[in-house]
């Protein structure tokens, strides 16, 4: 016999005990052995007849549709019946029988069909015995008794197998029931609590025995009971209910819970029990509230920062204009009239003031993206691109740049900002060109909820370690002599893209050109800032 998964523990001692209870004695064994010899090879006819009987019932017929299986089965059954009277009921015999029982259980054959089937066997066998022992009535009766005893022994083992298999399932399900995540309560149809798992106690504070027999409403605070009246109706109809509700701890305090209530149906589809699963979501709620508060705070402080940047840059402009103008005036009027030191000092003062003016202007432009905005409107990106190219036409002509582009889609957004986005990216591609005239290609692809637009150039490229840095305000990679600028352009691009619900990144290798890729939400339900 192949090894079975069976966890049944039957030892020699128990076999002896069971057989003793059945009063299977050595004389029985001898009688069975004598019978065994006369039955050798004679089961075939019975088994064929047996299978005909099995065709009369749906439950048995449906398991026997495969004719190859039936042929195999017939041979196995023959061996089975042969072994029944062989007179050796040891551990190996028992394992074999339990295996067969497990097979029947596994295929869904209910025990009544298996046990009832012995009737057909006895109906064939008993007359056989009577015929053989017609002259010895005692031996005849005793043989019949002996065969009944071993059949009962087999049935015991089959029942063991069925029980054990079901028990195993129960053991596994019990583990599931004792969930560590959810409280689980089983109630009867009147919503009286039948079973609770340990988590219920942990969440709601009750001891298990305090809950058994109580109505489930014990856990529902008064204000929630009303709502549940209709839920129960739906659940009884077979619709599970899931939702959030307050539950009441045994000490009276309320806590938010996520609850699932479903009905358990019997074979006819009628709900007989309810299963209530719930988890305490207080911690989740607290975390969620903290998160939304933090998000709110962040948005506020962002807004404030933007406001600050705007006000600062706007208000700083006036005094700075004075500094710049009058140092320039100084330089205009007195250059070459004082000594060389004075000329140099004036030069640095003018230069510093001018640089600061550019920075403040850029900061102002940057802060305006978030704070002084027009509502989004429908935008044709082709005309946006054309506008950007027109604004850049001097740089494009001077550098002999070749620009190719896809047909671009329509989208929603701020036309001025999107123009600026294209203008900055294309402008950069022209500005950071290599030895060759710039070749710039603008492509679009469909990326689910987004348009994915790339601006690719053949310029000097960007080393990987600077991918993040280039999008940070006032971060520059080159000195001002080679490439003038404050380092605001890409941070403005990033802000514009993000305001349009997208993202921007760069792919490049030093000396290999760069590709800036950004996404734009196709449809904006509301502004993302």
């Amino acid at each position: 016999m192949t090894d079975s998964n069976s966890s049944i523990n039957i030892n020699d001692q128990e076999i002896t005990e069971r057989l003793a209870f059945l009063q299977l004695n050595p004389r029985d064994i001898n009688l069975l052995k004598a019978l065994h010899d006369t039955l050798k090879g004679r089961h075939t006819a019975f088994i064929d007849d047996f299978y005909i009987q099995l065709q009369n019932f749906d439950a048995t017929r449906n398991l026997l549709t495969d004719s190859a299986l039936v042929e195999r089965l017939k041979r196995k059954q023959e061996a089975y019946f042969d072994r029944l009277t062989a007179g050796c009921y040891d551990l190996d015999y028992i394992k074999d029988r339990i295996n067969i029982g497990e097979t029947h259980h596994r295929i869904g054959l209910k025990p009544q069909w298996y046990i009832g089937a012995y009737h057909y066997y006895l109906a064939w066998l008993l007359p056989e015995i009577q015929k053989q022992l017609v002259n010895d009535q005692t031996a005849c009766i005793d043989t019949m008794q002996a065969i009944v005893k071993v059949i009962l022994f087999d049935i015991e083992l089959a029942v063991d197998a069925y029980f054990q298999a079901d028990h195993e399932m129960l053991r596994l399900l019990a583990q599931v029931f004792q969930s560590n995540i959810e409280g689980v309560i089983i109630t009867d149809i009147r919503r009286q609590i039948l079973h609770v798992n340990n988590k219920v106690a942990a969440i709601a504070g009750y001891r298990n025995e305090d809950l058994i027999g109580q109505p489930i409403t014990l856990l529902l605070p008064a204000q929630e009971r009303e709502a549940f009246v209709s839920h129960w109706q739906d659940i009884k109809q077979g619709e599970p209910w899931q939702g959030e509700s307050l539950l009441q701890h045994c000490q009276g305090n309320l806590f938010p819970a996520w609850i699932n209530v479903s009905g358990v149906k019997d074979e006819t589809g009628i709900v007989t029990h309810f299963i209530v699963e719930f988890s305490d979501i207080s911690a989740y709620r607290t975390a969620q509230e903290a998160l939304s508060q933090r998000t709110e705070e962040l948005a506020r402080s962002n807004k404030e920062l933007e406001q600050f940047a705007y006000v600062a840059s706007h208000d700083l402009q006036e005094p700075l204009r004075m500094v710049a103008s009058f140092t320039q005036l100084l330089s205009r009027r007195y250059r070459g009239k004082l000594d060389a030191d004075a000329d140099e000092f004036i030069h640095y003062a003018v230069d510093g003031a001018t640089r600061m003016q550019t920075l403040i202007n850029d900061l102002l432009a940057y802060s305006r993206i978030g704070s002084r905005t027009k509502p989004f409107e429908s935008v044709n990106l082709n005309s946006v691109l054309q506008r950007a190219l027109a604004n850049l036409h001097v740089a494009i002509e001077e550098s002999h740049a070749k620009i190719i582009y896809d047909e671009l889609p329509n989208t929603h957004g701020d036309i001025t900002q999107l123009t600026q986005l294209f203008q900055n990216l294309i402008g950069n591609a022209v500005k950071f060109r290599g030895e060759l005239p710039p070749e710039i290609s603008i492509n679009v692809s469909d990326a689910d909820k987004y348009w994915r637009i790339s601006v690719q150039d053949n310029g000097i490229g960007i080393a990987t370690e600077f991918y993040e840095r280039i999008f940070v305000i006032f971060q520059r990679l080159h000195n001002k002599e080679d490439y003038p600028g404050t380092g605001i352009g890409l941070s403005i691009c990033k802000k514009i893209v993000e305001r349009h619900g997208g993202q921007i990144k760069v792919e490049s290798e030093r000396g290999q050109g760069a590709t800036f890729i950004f996404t734009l939400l196709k449809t904006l339900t509301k502004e993302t800032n």
Partner: protein
Amino acid sequence: MSLENIGRAAEFLLVEDNPGDVRLTCEALTESKVKNNLSIVGDGMEAMAFLRREEPYTDAPRPDVILLDLNLPKKNGLEVLEEIKADPSLKRIPVVIITSSEAEQDILKTYDLHVNCYVNKPVDLEQFIKVVQSIETFWLTIVKLPSEVVD
């Protein structure tokens, strides 16, 4: 024919509270070829008193062109503009807004109030001087002003 040909100096009124800007405007105008007088007032109330020749401006000349800042104490540039354009005796005087505000609503609002032109103060000195001189050249040598016409 334009102002420079009628034999008197052109009269500018500059309404500006920032002494730095006043000085810069003066500087720009001293470099000018056209003979001009520049009167200066520091807020909106003074501007109206000047134009209406109220104390202490009873002897004030009538300006040929008004240079008006928007951001003024007491009475702001918009209010001054509105009063000038509502006053039949003043409304013909050309008003040039010269401001650092780039706000769209300021531009639209002032034109609604019949401003004659709106100019941003350039941040760069060279530009600033150029702008002031352009204003001067344009208003004093190119356009025909109502003050040239004897009615």
